[in-house]
């Protein structure tokens, strides 16, 4: 697996060099952006078991982190909480007031505030793990975001049917005040729009995470194409892009949670 560029492959033909650089980029640099089976640096290959993919190692790690933080923060030390308990309480109050109760109403808001807390923390920790050097971005894998969107979809539809009954759920697809002739056209559009909103949640998170990584890897590939002198321009740019990707990680987790709450609120309480 080690590919030491330049040592054994001294070529004088410039076009051949271009080919070798391209092959190196495709095989080693851009491999960070696809599903891979090992944490890879060019000189290190730690093989996992055959049936294990690296994203499947990151996902339980995020769950363990979440459970640890929540368990430590939920212990009552003193009447007035300090430290981690205080921060966690501020976080839960923020989600309860701004995201859950504001969109779902008071009673369902209190029911679902734990779901939104978990969702936000989970997506946030998965996004942040992608920026740590030897880890992979689990949310950059479309299967992970598809699972998250499916969970939201089943939860939203199931809650509407459970709390409002099947008739009211079917009535959300019929906006009030439409003439009868337009109904065969409008109801499929409404049904499709519900499905497409969940798919949009999935693709938004996936594409944002993947695009950030591909951008950084492409610009690092510029260093390989033009030799080491390009590092002067590339290094500050890559640092800036990394910080921007950190901001996007937080923002996309917040957007996923917020839009889940908004869409669930639209299903539960259709605007009159």
């Amino acid at each position, binding site marked *: 697996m080690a590919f030491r560029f330049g040592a054994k492959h001294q070529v004088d033909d410039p076009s051949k060099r271009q080919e070798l650089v391209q092959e190196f980029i495709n095989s080693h640099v851009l491999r960070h952006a696809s599903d891979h089976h090992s944490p890879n640096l060019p000189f290190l290959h730690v093989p996992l078991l055959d049936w294990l993919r690296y994203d499947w190692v990151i996902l339980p790690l995020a769950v363990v982190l979440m459970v640890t933080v929540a368990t430590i923060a939920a212990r009552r030390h003193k009447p007035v909480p300090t430290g981690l308990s205080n921060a966690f309480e501020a976080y839960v109050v923020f989600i309860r007031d*701004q995201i859950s109760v504001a969109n779902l109403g008071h009673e369902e808001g209190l029911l679902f505030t734990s779901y939104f807390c978990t969702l936000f923390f989970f997506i946030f920790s998965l996004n942040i793990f992608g920026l740590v050097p030897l880890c992979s971005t689990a949310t950059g894998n479309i299967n992970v975001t598809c699972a998250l969107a499916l969970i939201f979809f089943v939860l939203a539809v199931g809650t509407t049917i459970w709390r409002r009954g099947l008739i009211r759920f079917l009535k959300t697809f019929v906006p009030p005040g439409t003439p009868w002739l337009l109904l065969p056209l409008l109801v499929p559009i409404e049904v499709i729009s519900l499905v497409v909103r969940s798919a*949009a949640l999935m*693709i*938004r998170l*996936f*594409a*944002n995470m993947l*695009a950030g990584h591909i951008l950084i890897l492409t610009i690092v590939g510029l260093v390989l194409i033009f030799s080491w002198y390009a590092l002067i321009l590339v290094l500050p740019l890559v640092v800036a892009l990394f910080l921007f990707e950190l901001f996007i990680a937080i*923002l*996309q987790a*917040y*957007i996923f949670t*917020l*839009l889940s709450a*908004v869409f669930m609120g639209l299903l539960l309480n259709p605007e009159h």
Partner: protein
Amino acid sequence: MTIPPLSDLHLAALGAGLAAIGAGIGIGLIWGNGLQSIARQPELLPKLQVSMFIGAALVEGVALFAIVICMK
């Protein structure tokens, strides 16, 4: 000057660039109007920030659909 033969990769890059134009215009419109209304009534800042972020995420979602299709 002859036009080089267009391959799939060239057209994909062109499509992604066009999607970026749409995203730029959309986000610029949202935040421009948001800044104007913040200048008129600064006490509405928290509510407007939430709406602006939601709008920006939706617009970027559409642009990213186009980019994901271009990648295939």
